[in-house]
């Protein structure tokens, strides 16, 4: 396998280049470019309609049939586009959804569901599949006494742990987590993010969330989407006005609220030029044209007006 070599150090990179995802009428993702490094958690943030889940579904190889994708995906320097094969789904890339109840067959016990996944993807003996299932459920701290329960007998947090175990049991290189904690209360959320921290070392983790505090806590670097476009790709140093708007949504006792104006646009109804223009404090005449992605130190940015 070809890998990227930089200063004698092997860089394991998942790279998305010029990715467009479109319906027959309008684009949902427009010219997406980013890199994710093995062992680091790449967090994707943005509001509804930004294209976060579409990007996650694309990487997991489960894009809806009616959507057309074009662009390049490179894994460790090797082109893998389009990621749609059986080998890709599950074995190479696994996805964890917001609603864990939709992940499992309601008629199958949790333990058996995970085991069946293993038997489907690998030539394993029943005993081996059972051992792997046990070990992953233990790793995500899923209590032993509930392992033979049906999904409806478990709480959302417990079931989310099981869905993580199920995805990780296939040992995928890429794990996409699409708002895995949205339906959970704070202690459960923290428990789930802790699991991702633990399993990130050997994997590419793409973590989609709309909880900004959670994003800042778990993320090693960030991709900020708006109107189907990358607005910023950065480590913690956000400089794009939209990223600043998102990060300012964490309330601080004693500090006044600065509510934003307007809403994120639907992809079918994007304004011409920079999609964020209408809500932007820095907007200028130039924003009527879409700004290119430019590099500012460690940050890659789409804005005409950030100095």
């Amino acid at each position, binding site marked *: 396998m070809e890998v990227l070599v930089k200063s004698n150090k092997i860089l394991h990179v998942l790279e998305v280049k010029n990715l467009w995802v479109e319906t027959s009428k309008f684009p949902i993702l427009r010219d997406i470019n980013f890199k994710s490094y093995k062992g680091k958690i790449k967090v994707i943030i943005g*509001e*509804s309609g930004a294209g976060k889940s579409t990007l996650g579904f694309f990487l997991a190889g489960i894009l809806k049939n009616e959507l057309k994708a074009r662009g390049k995906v490179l894994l460790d320097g090797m082109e893998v586009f389009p990621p749609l094969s059986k080998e890709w789904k599950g074995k190479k890339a696994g996805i964890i959804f917001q609603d864990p109840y939709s992940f499992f067959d309601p008629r199958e016990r949790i333990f058996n569901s995970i085991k069946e996944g293993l038997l489907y993807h690998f030539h394993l003996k029943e005993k081996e599949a059972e051992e792997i299932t046990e070990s992953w459920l233990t790793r995500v*701290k899923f*209590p032993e006494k509930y392992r033979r329960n049906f999904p409806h007998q478990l*709480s*959302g*947090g417990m079931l989310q742990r099981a869905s993580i175990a199920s995805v990780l049991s296939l040992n995928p290189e890429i794990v996409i987590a699409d708002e895995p904690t949205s339906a*959970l*209360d*704070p*202690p*459960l959320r*923290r*428990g789930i993010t*802790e699991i991702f921290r633990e399993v990130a070392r050997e994997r590419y983790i793409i973590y989609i969330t*709309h*909880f*900004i*505090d959670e994003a800042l806590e778990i993320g090693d670097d960030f991709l900020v989407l708006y109107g189907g476009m990358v607005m910023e790709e950065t480590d913690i140093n956000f400089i794009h006005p939209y990223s600043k*708007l*998102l990060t300012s*949504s*964490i*309330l*601080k*006792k004693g500090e006044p*609220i*600065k*509510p*934003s104006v307007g*809403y*994120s646009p639907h992809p079918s109804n994007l304004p011409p030029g920079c999609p964020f223009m209408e809500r932007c404090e820095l907007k200028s005449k130039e924003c009527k044209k879409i700004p290119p992605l430019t590099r500012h130190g460690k940050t890659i940015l789409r804005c005409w007006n950030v100095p």
Partner: protein
Amino acid sequence: MFLEMKGITKSFKKFKIKDLSFKMEKGEIVGLVGISGSGKTTIASMLLKLILPDSGSYLINGRNALSIKRKDFSRIVQGIFQNPARALNPRKKVSFLLKEPYLAHGKSPDDLEIKRLLESLSLPKEVLNETPNNLSGGQLQRIAIARALSLRPSFLIADEPTSALDPTVQIQIIDLILKLNRKEKIGIFFISHDLNQVFYLSEKVIVISEGIIMEMGDADEIMKNPHPYTMYLMKGKFSEANREKGKCPFYSICPLAKEICRDSMPELKKTGENHLTRCHLL
């Protein structure tokens, strides 16, 4: 005007609200927090009379709220919920949805009143001609709030009104709730998973576990000296229960638990000027 619950109990198959007592003045913001399944929505539903308690009393200004006719009650207490789309008829235009509460009460709203509502909620007048499916989550929640406020109630029960919204829109709704509280002196009962939001907004906070109040009082006092369970909500990570269930609802997880917590339910005790805590160890 005040709203009061005294010794309320409500039993379901696997869950029980036990001896719920608290008071809320008009113009106050009271927050309610607890993990999933702790009884938050049951309390909101009882405050709105959507479900009735098994025993105890629910009073509004000292009068039995359960004996107040539905029409009169809806002029005093109104509610908004997590999913505003479910609360709005998808086939009706916003102009009708905003007039509906007035019509239900035999009033005919003038355009000026509707305009005032739209302005106070920062909604453009263009939304009047739209149906709910053409509007964003934030706009729908504003319309749900507009409907709830159209009868000028004294109390608004807000059950997770921001949890389905984008972070920027959450802030817009929080800002709106604060403004309504300050301008119109509406009492807000604010339920959320987001402790940051609850403590930002609320003067008083109630913390609940398994249908039992673990702690209540001034938000600042709770922040300074939280119950171990509140601390768990603020900073804890879910872990498998360390031990079997005890009389104190937090016994199985509590890092400070002792034998007494297993054997007897602690009373709500005064631990500050305006702070009650249910813990043997504080």
